[in-house]
């Protein structure tokens, strides 16, 4: 956690890609209901889950890319770049919305059984599609599974301001953002959605804090100064918190499977861990502890990052927007298949393997496009090893996603 660590410009920190890739796999796995594999994801050993990892790393890499762009080409250019990204995310969101609408329309009209009258409420927007589509265009329509992109879009829209403040004083954004987070926890401020008058699944006013923490940490790669405390005490405290929370979460899971096993502190803690919408403080603390502990154990030059099994994960992290969208579509499709055909354990394994395989294939395809675009016409494609090194070399121009 020293300022010098991984400060070298131009070398891509593969840890960011690796953990973002991993969080994308976990988001896919967790999005398939009743997926047995989801017991082996992040959320089984922590109050936080893959969403926190994704948003934190997105904040970090956003500063990495746009912060440097700001230094080199000025604020206007960086802002334009950010808004180009916002536009891509927005288009992706609308695409997912269309797929989701198709799926709901199909399911609703196929079921339309009075026995499921309460469930049919999910299709209420079909009765007022003119309103639903307009709300979708304004990010206000967030049916299930379509919640993290609107959050990311709103966070990036405010990002030029964060960059501007970061350059005034490194801690300025985090202080403002922290105060807003506290106000949200105390006053319950939240934007509302359609249908009906509900909070966003991920309240951007709360989640912005994690994004800004990530962005502030990422700024250390721009100005070379680590903005947070970095003593050994912090490392040990974080490890202690991580282990403590993991033991509690595991005890809850054990209790789930085997009733006589006591769920440690469940009465005291459970209510403080379920508020994902507003990023409950316990979730935030748990995640930050895990982040610090991870940085302490996993160095930028860790050997496993260069192992061949880690490479597909890293690749997915490097192309995270597309891989994320593919993952969401696949988890929706995967569950649809499990429900329609049959949900046996074998079929589940197939859906998991095919889904993750398709995510990796998407990343490979994008990598191939990029590499093909770089090499002179007519030349042979590079080997996997070499193109990976090339990807590391050209890091500053990498996309932030």
């Amino acid at each position: 956690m020293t300022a010098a660590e991984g400060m070298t410009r131009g070398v891509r920190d593969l840890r960011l890609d690796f953990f973002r890739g991993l969080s994308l796999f976990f988001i896919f796995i967790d999005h398939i209901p009743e997926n047995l594999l989801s017991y082996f994801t992040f959320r089984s050993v922590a109050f936080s889950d893959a969403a926190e990892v994704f948003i934190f790393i997105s904040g970090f890499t956003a500063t990495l890319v746009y912060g440097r762009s700001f230094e080199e080409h000025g604020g206007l250019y960086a802002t334009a770049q950010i808004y180009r990204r916002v536009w891509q995310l927005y288009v992706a969101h609308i695409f997912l919305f269309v797929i989701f609408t198709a799926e709901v329309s199909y399911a609703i009209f196929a079921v339309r059984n009075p026995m499921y009258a309460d469930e049919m409420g999910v299709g209420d927007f079909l009765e007022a599609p003119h309103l639903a589509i307009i709300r979708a265009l304004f990010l206000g329509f967030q049916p299930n599974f379509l919640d993290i992109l609107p959050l990311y879009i709103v966070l990036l829209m405010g990002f030029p301001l964060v960059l501007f403040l970061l350059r005034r004083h490194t801690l300025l954004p985090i202080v403002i953002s922290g105060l807003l987070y506290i106000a949200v926890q105390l006053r319950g401020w939240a934007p509302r959605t359609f249908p009906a008058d509900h909070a966003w699944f991920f309240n951007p006013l709360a989640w912005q804090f994690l994004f800004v923490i990530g962005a502030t940490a990422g700024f250390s790669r721009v100005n070379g100064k680590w903005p947070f405390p970095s003593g050994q005490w912090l490392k040990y405290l974080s490890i202690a918190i991580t282990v403590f929370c993991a033991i509690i979460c595991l005890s809850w899971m054990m209790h789930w499977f085997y009733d006589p096993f006591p769920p440690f502190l469940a009465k005291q803690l459970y209510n403080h861990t379920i508020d994902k919408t507003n990023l409950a403080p316990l979730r935030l603390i748990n995640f930050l502890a895990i982040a610090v502990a991870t940085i302490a154990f996993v160095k930028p030059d860790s050997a496993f990052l260069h192992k061949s099994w880690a490479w597909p994960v890293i690749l997915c992290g490097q192309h995270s927007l597309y891989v994320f969208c593919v993952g969401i579509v696949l988890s929706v499709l995967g569950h649809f298949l499990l429900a329609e055909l049959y949900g046996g354990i074998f079929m589940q394994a197939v859906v998991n393997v095919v889904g993750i395989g398709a995510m990796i294939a998407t990343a490979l395809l994008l990598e191939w496009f990029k590499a093909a675009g770089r090499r002179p016409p007519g030349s042979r494609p590079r080997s996997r090893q070499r193109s990976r090194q090339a990807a590391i070399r050209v890091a500053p121009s990498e996309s932030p996603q």
Partner: protein
Amino acid sequence: MIRYLALIAVFLFAALTPGNRVLSQEIAPEPVPAACSVPHDLIEDGPRLPALARRFHAKLPITIVVIGGASTAGTAAGGEGEINAYPHRLEEALKRRHPDVPITVINKGIPRQSAQDMVARFAQDVLPHNPNLVIWETGTVDAVRGIEVEDFAAAIQSGAALLRQHKAEIMLVDMQYNPRTSSIINFEPYLDTMRQTADLEEIYLFRRYDIMHYWSDAGSFDLVNVPKGKQADLAEEIYECLGERMADAIDYAVR
């Protein structure tokens, strides 16, 4: 008891008998209620209802109020009034099993209500009946509307506290299962919240979702391909089976 393992058993069962559903469609188009049995673990799991047990033993009159949504109101099953709804089926089953205990089941199902909406009507719909047991079916509308799980948990906790204040014992009932709706509605967090909250508050949870899931996987019922004319028949059968299984649950909890 071993929670959730039953569900895994269901998966294994489904995995080992892939053609089961098709087979059952062909040879048994109209399953009889006897076919709707479930593994014991799905029923015999959770805290007991000691006060209700004492009333059963003493053969004192028992009042049960069922509060819930559209599936509790049960109009989908047709018939006069609530005659085919699961609360009435439960009443029939209990009376048959305990002929010497005067049992009344009151149906207070109203469609499209969240857990919080229901708590708000406890005062006029539930408490005036001085129920010994309140069966509270909830969660569907909360999941459909994407109400914050924290608010959902808080509603259940406040509702449970209110009922206990009035000396009523509680049985929670979770959502209905349908393969199609479960892929478009994110039930998982709400199911988890209900299980955790029931566990923490020591409330018996009637796992309707897992039970119907089991029926669907085992081929007892085809919940997806229902011809228009057969919808009411299916609802009637499901409600009858749910009434029986709920009576099993009460028998377990008052044992």
